[in-house]
């Protein structure tokens, strides 16, 4: 019998179950795009019939990191940039958990960039939501890795001399097997994409455009948005790495020219997730490791390993 009975209940779950009983007042500003992430995540989890106790939501630091405070589930509000290594270890320890990591563009593409690259490379079966508002919000409006070139702030007073990072291309190159971009202004698409990302068996990266009305843009500036799957101008195969790469490049460049392209950009269903690769080389047990501490397991002893020392 499992020690974790919340896992795999497969029951009807109301989206309100993901709202904390004593709801902390969100610290996000009015009009903030972060509300849309919270709402679409609740909707996606409800659509998937996941119960709050089988989800681990690991977040970074910043306005985006507060997501775990307003979403009812097991949560781990970590340190700046480190949600991914904590989340992926939890997934290895108990692969039956539904593991989500979330953070901002500074968190994921700046300070945590190394973890982003390597977690994508390893293709852990988890979803990574990056609240991309092109700015450091909570620390009051500094230039971030996705701020446009020439962006002026107190830390870049003469305008940033740096080209912004290309998050979708970076995810693809690193090895993510599902890559999408959605926007707070399009909650229906966001919920659909999050649902697909969570269902995907592998590392799913969702770059979520969240307007920051206080420090850079309000929602209006992300409208009109284009869903590349629903627009005849864009015809590419999301399972073709080369076509996906070209479309991502165009999408990333277009954002800074005022054109908001969203949708699914890459989906590889054939790549094995890290857990399955690791199991196939004999480096990971078949049963969730976390269960063993509650079973009648006969634990190995070092005393039985001493032959090599005699």
């Amino acid at each position, binding site marked *: 019998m499992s*020690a*974790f*009975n*919340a*896992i795999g209940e497969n029951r009807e779950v109301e989206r309100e179950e993901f709202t904390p*009983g*004593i709801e*902390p007042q969100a610290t996000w500003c009015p009009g903030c795009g972060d509300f849309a992430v919270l709402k679409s995540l609740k909707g996606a989890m409800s659509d998937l019939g996941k119960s*709050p*106790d*089988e989800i*681990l939501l*690991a977040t970074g*630091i910043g306005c985006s990191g*507060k997501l*775990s*405070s307003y979403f*009812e*589930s*097991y*949560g*781990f*509000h*970590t*340190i700046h940039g*480190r949600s991914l*290594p*904590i*989340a*992926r*270890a*939890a*997934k*290895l*320890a*108990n692969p*039956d*958990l539904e593991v989500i990591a979330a953070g901002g563009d500074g968190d994921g593409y700046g300070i945590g960039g*190394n*973890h982003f690259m*390597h977690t994508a490379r390893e293709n852990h079966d988890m979803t990574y939501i990056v609240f991309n508002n092109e700015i450091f919000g909570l620390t009051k409006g500094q230039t971030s890795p996705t701020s446009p070139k020439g962006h002026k702030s107190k830390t870049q007073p003469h305008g940033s001399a740096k080209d912004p990072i290309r998050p979708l291309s970076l995810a693809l190159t690193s090895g993510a097997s599902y890559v999408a971009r959605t926007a707070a202004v399009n909650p229906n698409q966001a919920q659909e994409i999050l649902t697909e990302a969570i269902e995907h068996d592998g590392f799913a990266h969702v770059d979520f455009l969240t307007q920051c009305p206080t420090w850079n843009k309000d929602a209006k500036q992300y409208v009109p948005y284009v869903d590349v799957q629903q627009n005849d101008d864009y015809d590419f195969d999301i399972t073709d790495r080369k076509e996906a790469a070209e479309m991502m490049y165009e999408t990333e460049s277009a954002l800074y020219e005022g054109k908001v392209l969203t949708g699914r950009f890459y989906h590889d269903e054939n790549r094995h997730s890290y857990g399955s690769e*690791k199991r196939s080389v004999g*480096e*990971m*047990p078949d049963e969730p*490791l*976390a269960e*063993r*501490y*509650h079973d009648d*397991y006969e*634990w*190995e*002893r*070092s*005393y039985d*390993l*001493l032959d090599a*020392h*005699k």
Partner: protein
Amino acid sequence: MTQELVWRIAGGSGDGIDSTSQNFAKALMRSGLDVFTHRHYPSRIRGGHTYVEIRAGPDSVRSRGDGYNFLLALGDSFARNPQEDAYYGNEEVKPLAENLDELREGGVIVYDEGLVDIDDVPDFEQRVEENGWHVYPMDLRAIAREHGREVMRNTAGVGATAALLEYDMEHIQGLMEDRMSGEVLQANLDILQMVYDEVEEMEFSHDLRMPEGSHDEEQVLLSGSNAIAYGAIDEGCRFIAGYPMTPWTEVFTLMTQHLPEIGGISEQVEDEIAAAALALGASHAGVKAMSGSSGGGFALMSEPLGLAEMTETPVVLVEAMRAGPSTGMPTKPEQADLEHVLYTSQGDSSRVVFAPGNVAEAYDQTRAAFRIAYDYQLPAIVLYDQKLSGELRNVDESFFDREPNPDLGSTLSEEEIAEAAHHASGKFQRFQHDPDNDKGVSPRSIPGQKDGRFLATGNEHTPEGHISEDPENRVAQLSRRRRKLESIREELDAEESSHQTYHGPDDADYGIITFGSQQGTVLEAVDRLNDAGHDVRALGVSDMMPFPDAEMIEFLESVEEAMVVEMNGSAQFRGLIQKELGRFGPKLNSLLKYNGDPFEPHEVVEGSEAIIEGDEPAPTTEFVPAAGD
């Protein structure tokens, strides 16, 4: 009658010095001797001056000796820059030339004349004469080439050693048969026999012979790193994450070898921040987990370490010290990361730090670290160094005949969560201000358990885990987290056996205090001092945090004066004693060594005599008198 052999095998990195010495040490152990090894190697893959010393004797051998009495100089087959004016000197003769200073009078030298040209060793003939050394040149390379491959000159050298010491070859043959087979085995056995026969016909001028001894029970030969890995396995640790760094890599590699065989998981990751974070993530999800590194890598773990303290996530980290600062001397031991490990990470720390003093303590205290980390939900650190990491020592096999302890510590089952009184509000209170348990520990739930959900956050938080900056809540939570350390101290003090080691008469006038890996050397020095008519007692300390105040006060009050022995330049351990106790400054002298080489017993003896008789301390050490002296 010979009491001890201190055998040094010298060559270049990559010449198989390590494995040859391990096998020889094991043969000596099997034949009834106590053994202890000391490694010295450079930070490079091929070449450079490297040696391993094996000290062997009939009675408990617990440290390296003073110098050594038998040199097997194999020659460095990867030597480069043989010009005398080259920056690294003439590497070809280093295995001989670099080892002469510590060779005792009357010692024995076997060198490979196939690789070492004696004319290039400065003043060799003169030094041999002055020191009464017995020199046996042999073309080990030629013998190895003739019967097998050149690398087998190690075997030839071991055969020569055995013959010169009149040591029964059976022990060495038996070991080779265990480890090799087929043609390789036969070639090695042939070489061994041939050299043995050749040497037997030579005329000996030396008196040194292999000591004899016997053991009452089966022995096993382990390093400090083996012991740490086995301690972790016996505590049910089945997850490790790491990034390579000398000398921590040894524990990481050993765990990685064992874990897949016993259904565990090892992860080599992108950096040490990730390594520590992964250990936290696995522990949070209900698996006993560890990580570790050496100085520079451990520095990267500062933030995850603080997160573990704030979120009360159990984790065990090991820190294998090497000489710093920065990259320092990667393969040389030092004890200068003590303060780093005690205080790194922002805010008030609440962690446990143990510094084991030998191989057996490394096992015991790793187990204690896991037990305390999981019972009290905080990080526990095992602090050791390059010396303890690689030193091999024989231990009774029965020492390891113990029960495993996979217990997850302070956790709740789903039934207990449902019944928890505070759960009546409908929200599990993971971080209660005043848990039923007066140790300050609030039991945790594990993700996936029904109705146990909570938020773990590095922000200050309420009992439910909500972020809060309320002053009353802040004080209640911080005080509770700090209270855990007091509870741990009380628990450790109540245990039957202390982690601290005492040696020498209870009513001694002088005390010598040390921590971690220098314990064995200090114990031997204390025996010698007492044999010489002094009145000295040793205290080897392992509990760095929470500090054993009561034991330390009792010890310091019992002596007139004390000397703190540590391998660093800033007297960090003496500073810790004074910080914790706030007094005894006028009683505490320091003996420091930070040249990359661990203390030898005579250096501790001479340091003590500096206090007792006003003598000069050994030039390799630095003596710092007590305040006011």
